[in-house]
């Protein structure tokens, strides 16, 4: 009797020893993985430059308004439609407002709306995709057909349709872009979930009696995180584009707001006399989208060189 007890204890000791051993291994593996990732990423020079630009833009989005050399709303009737100069780097608009200051002041608006809508859209899409991929059946059917319907309004048409329902305004642009983001995440996360779900380690976890919730969030979700991160960065670019397109069409921010797309929409009328009003804000949108896209490319190539 005591013999078996002893054996049991020993067995348990062994098990716990193994558990510790494995845990440490995983931790060691994780930190070295991060290091390796950073090392690999640093080799991609364009992506690193894009990352720096991106961080710079995010800092501007946070601190932008206070960095502005002029009051972005102050009219200056002595300097209407002035081209770029030492005083006004990006020139002035039809009211003599400093365009550079307006771009800085608009950064939190444009970037904030885009980023937050992607975050919300991605979260929704991810949960739907995970559940659809994991449970299958009618839920999967529902989510995927729903995504199909939303996809039938391709690209920004979906965002436009939503704004058509909700009416113009910056909050509605945020909702529109978030909804516009959902279906692509739902699809990608579903296929990522399906792939991970059938992998060996999930099979093992299931055979060990792991419960659905734990299986889904502890075992499956981490396996899909690469797709999530890569898609997330890529979608920020599209979101900025969609949001500024909506504003350009006059559905977004108030025309007096310094939102970047809205600024371009305003400047259309001055194309012949003051082209800098089009070039420079557009260039800022372009550089921003480019930075996010290049960073996304770099991330994707580093995380998974196979999906090119």
């Amino acid at each position, binding site marked *: 009797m005591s013999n078996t007890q002893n054996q049991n204890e020993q067995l348990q000791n062994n098990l716990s020893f193994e558990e510790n051993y494995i845990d440490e291994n995983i931790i060691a593996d994780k930190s070295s993985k991060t290091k390796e990732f950073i090392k690999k990423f640093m080799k991609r020079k364009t992506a690193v430059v894009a990352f720096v630009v991106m961080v710079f833009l995010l800092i501007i989005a946070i601190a932008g308004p206070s960095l502005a050399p002029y009051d972005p709303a102050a009219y200056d009737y002595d300097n209407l439609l002035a081209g770029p100069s030492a005083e006004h780097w990006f020139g002035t608009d039809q009211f003599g407002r400093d365009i550079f200051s307006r771009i800085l002041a608009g950064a939190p608006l444009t970037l904030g709306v885009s980023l937050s809508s992607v975050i919300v859209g991605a979260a929704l899409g991810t949960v739907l995709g995970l559940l659809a991929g994991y449970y299958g059946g009618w839920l999967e059917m529902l989510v995927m*057909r729903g995504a199909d319907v939303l996809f*039938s309004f391709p690209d920004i048409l979906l965002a436009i349709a939503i*704004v*058509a*329902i909700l009416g113009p305004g910056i909050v509605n642009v945020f909702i529109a872009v978030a909804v516009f983001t959902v279906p692509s995440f739902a699809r990608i996360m579903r296929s990522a979930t399906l792939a991970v779900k059938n992998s060996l380690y999930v099979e093992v976890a299931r055979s060990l009696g792991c419960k659905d919730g734990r299986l889904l969030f502890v075992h499956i979700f981490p396996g899909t995180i690469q797709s999530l991160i890569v898609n997330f960065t890529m979608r920020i*670019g599209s979101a900025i584009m969609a949001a500024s397109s909506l504003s350009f069409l006059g559905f977004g921010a108030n025309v007096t707001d310094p939102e970047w797309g809205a600024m371009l929409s305003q400047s259309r009328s001055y194309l012949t006399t003051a082209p800098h009003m*089009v070039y420079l804000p557009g260039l800022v949108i372009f550089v921003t*989208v480019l930075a996010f896209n290049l960073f996304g490319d770099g991330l994707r190539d580093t995380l998974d060189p196979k999906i090119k």
Partner: protein
Amino acid sequence: MGRYIVKRLLQTIPLMLVISIFVFMFIHLLPGDPARTLAGVEATPEEVEAIREEFGLNDPLIVQYIDYMKDLFRGDMGRSLKSNIPVTELILSRFKFTIQLVFAGLIWAPVVGIFIGVICAIKRGTWIDLGGMLFAITGLSAPGFWLGLMGIQIFSVNLGWLPSGGLDSWKSLILPSIVMGTGIMATLARYSRSSMLETLREDYVRTARAKGQKESIVMFRHAFKNSLIQVVTILGLQIGGLLSGSVITETIFSIPGMGRLLVDSIAYRDYPTIQGLLMIFALQYVLINLIVDVLYGVINPKIRYD
């Protein structure tokens, strides 16, 4: 093959039904009383009542939906609140402009995009590859409205070579076609490069070389043709992108197409027109994807002979 097409057609029907419910619900999703919305802001209570009667808004939703579908099949999508012209007529008068734009984009963008992608894949790691991919991601990141306005400023205002708007001659199509096509060109360049790279790693490409085949033929006959099958799968999505791009392009170049109509209708809250346009846009997209899928079946022997 026949079965494949039938299967795809059958799959389209439920999708179209759900889309029609979605679009039908559109009016009912709007905040406030649908009759009031349809009647317009300045309508008198009598007018609102008349609208309510005309549109059968007192009926149960399901009856309203069936009526809506019946009308839709007869080509009746109501009247525009703004111009009082039947929506179908209105859309038909705008349709050709948008289609011209879509073709103007389609005529060059896929070919150029695939060409760039394939060349980059074959010359991967060289400066050609780097340049091509930088070009592609630049095209992908440039907002269409910015490109269009810059195009007008340079080629119309400064150089005077091209008209700045309208659709009167082939010349006036050039700038819009660039704005329409840039995104699809860039996406296809990136996608066909990766598809080609994947194909180049295939065993059968090695087999073709082992036969003693010339490199150029190995690339074209064995690698490119197979990678194209994959590229076709995303073509539907891309053409959909063109449809939505028409909204921006028509706005910039003052072209009276369906996209412009949509923007104007939203600004005017002309809901029957918006509803009709959304239905038509979705229908077009679903049809395009159906055609692309059939095309995929035609060029892919695995589906053709199954």
